[in-house]
């Protein structure tokens, strides 16, 4: 029996007086790929930030591997084994590709991912290792961002807007590499605008609408219309 690696319960997050998340609960099992879909402003990124410790929830609990992450710094949470590929990649522009990757391994968590392994999955990064990271193409930059997150050997990987701003052919390439990346038994939460693609690759999904979960379940159990209704709230 697989056990849940992350448990979020009754999470409520506020920005000042505005409530961004209204009591969300979800769990993810080891090795599972969960898709998180929803329109802009639904609270997906806020949920990610709460999991990473960058936003403090007002109430509710987040347990990772049975331990609460409440009050821990983002750095401490990374040490516990959560890594995020942030929306817009956020590479360090003064650093080379390789330095960006090395920084990903800053916490020195042991595990399967090494610089060499990242280069095996993304050979192009090895060729470009001494280039300034932001001089690469969008798709290559996304590979650096993924590689950087993997370097901390996470047990839970958060992928935020993987295909944002990338050409369709590049998106296809990156998704083809996904099984190779996730083959190490990592649990993954994927935020994706392309709902069809998100449903194809994931085991389960959660659809958010205005800070609440409007639909969740097995990715292949619902029709296009049902998901569309949950997505738009119609």
């Amino acid at each position, binding site marked *: 029996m697989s056990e849940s690696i992350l448990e979020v319960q009754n999470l409520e997050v506020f920005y000042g007086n505005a409530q961004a998340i209204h009591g969300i609960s979800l769990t993810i099992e080891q090795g599972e790929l969960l898709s998180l879909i929803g329109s802009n402003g639904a609270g997906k990124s806020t949920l990610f930030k709460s999991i*990473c410790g960058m936003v403090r929830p007002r109430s509710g609990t987040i347990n990772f591997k049975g331990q609460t992450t409440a009050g821990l710094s983002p*750095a401490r949470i*990374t040490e516990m084994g959560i890594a995020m590929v942030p929306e817009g990649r*956020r590479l360090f522009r003064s650093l080379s590709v390789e330095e960006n990757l090395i920084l990903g391994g*800053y916490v020195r968590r042991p595990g399967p991912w090494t610089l060499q392994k990242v280069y095996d999955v993304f050979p192009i990064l090895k060729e470009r290792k001494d*280039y*300034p990271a932001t001089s690469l193409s969008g798709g290559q930059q996304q590979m650096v961002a993924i590689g*950087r997150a993997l370097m901390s050997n996470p047990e839970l990987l958060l992928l935020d807007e993987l295909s944002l701003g990338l050409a369709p052919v590049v998106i296809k390439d990156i998704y083809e590499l996904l099984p190779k990346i996730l083959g190490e038994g990592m649990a993954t939460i994927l935020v994706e605008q392309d709902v069809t693609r998100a449903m194809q690759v994931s085991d389960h999904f959660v659809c958010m609408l205005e800070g609440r979960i409007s639909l969740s379940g097995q990715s292949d159990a619902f029709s296009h219309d049902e998901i569309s209704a949950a997505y738009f709230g119609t």
Partner: protein
Amino acid sequence: MQHATITRSTQASRIAGILALCFLVYIGAAPWWAGSADLRLITEILFYLALASMWNLLAGYAGLISVGQHAYVGLGGYLMFSCVLFLGMNPLWSIPVAGVAGALISIPVAWLVFRLKGPYFAIGTWVVAEVFRLSAAQMSSVGGGSGLSIPVAVMRDLGRKPDREMLIYFTAFALCVGAILLVYFLLRSRVGLALTAIRDNEVASSSLGVKIGRIKLFVYVAAAAVTTMIGALIFVTKLRISPDAAFSVNDWTVFVIFIVVIGGIGTIEGPIIGTLLFFLLREFLADLGAIYLMILGAMAIGIMLAAPKGLWGLLVSRYDFSIFPVGYRVRR
């Protein structure tokens, strides 16, 4: 695809590096070619260069805009005096002792001022320096408000006047080169990688597990230790200390900030250019008194408006080279 190579340095930067090395040897040999007055001037230049490099490390690389670094200059001076007068130590040997003590004292200070952000941090550091000055003025054992002098016998122990001046000069030279090398090697290390990442994007670096607070603390303590050592040596050359001279915000912080800002903040070369320009201006304009300070102020504002990256930034954008390569460049 066009062929491209990646290097840390360029042809120009290698040539500039060799020239810089020659210049360094020339400066290092100053006691053999400079007269007593020139040697004192070069010693002072070295002090300011070292102080500027440390302030640049704080403000330019770690984003810690402190306007209270004179706290550590004065602290160094008083620690040196205390070592000499109460422990009977050699003034030069008291410098490393002052460095260690400065580092230890800076930890509780950091604990206090790190609670403040941005402008509040700047004001906080200034207040701390003011507290240091007032405390020194209250201690009658070190002369209270009027200060005290080093006994002649203590200086005589360092040797005859030319030997003594040479000894002090080499100590200043070592401290200054050491300060610049500290910045250089720090930037090329794991800490430097983290500092650059924090400067590029604080949120992204913290989510990769970079402990921002700890890195900044490390930089603050390192800068405090070196600044304290420089302060100790400065007051060996001055022979006399008083709270107002030791904790002078103008002498040890305002001029240093001027140097870094006009030279180019966030570069290793910036403080070097800034120091040279500062002393050039001082040699020609110091006789003008208050007007000299007004010219300095106007220049600082002018350069900040016209070239926010300082004179070194202007040079780099025009000729693309660096003497201390810490980044990468693509050549096609």
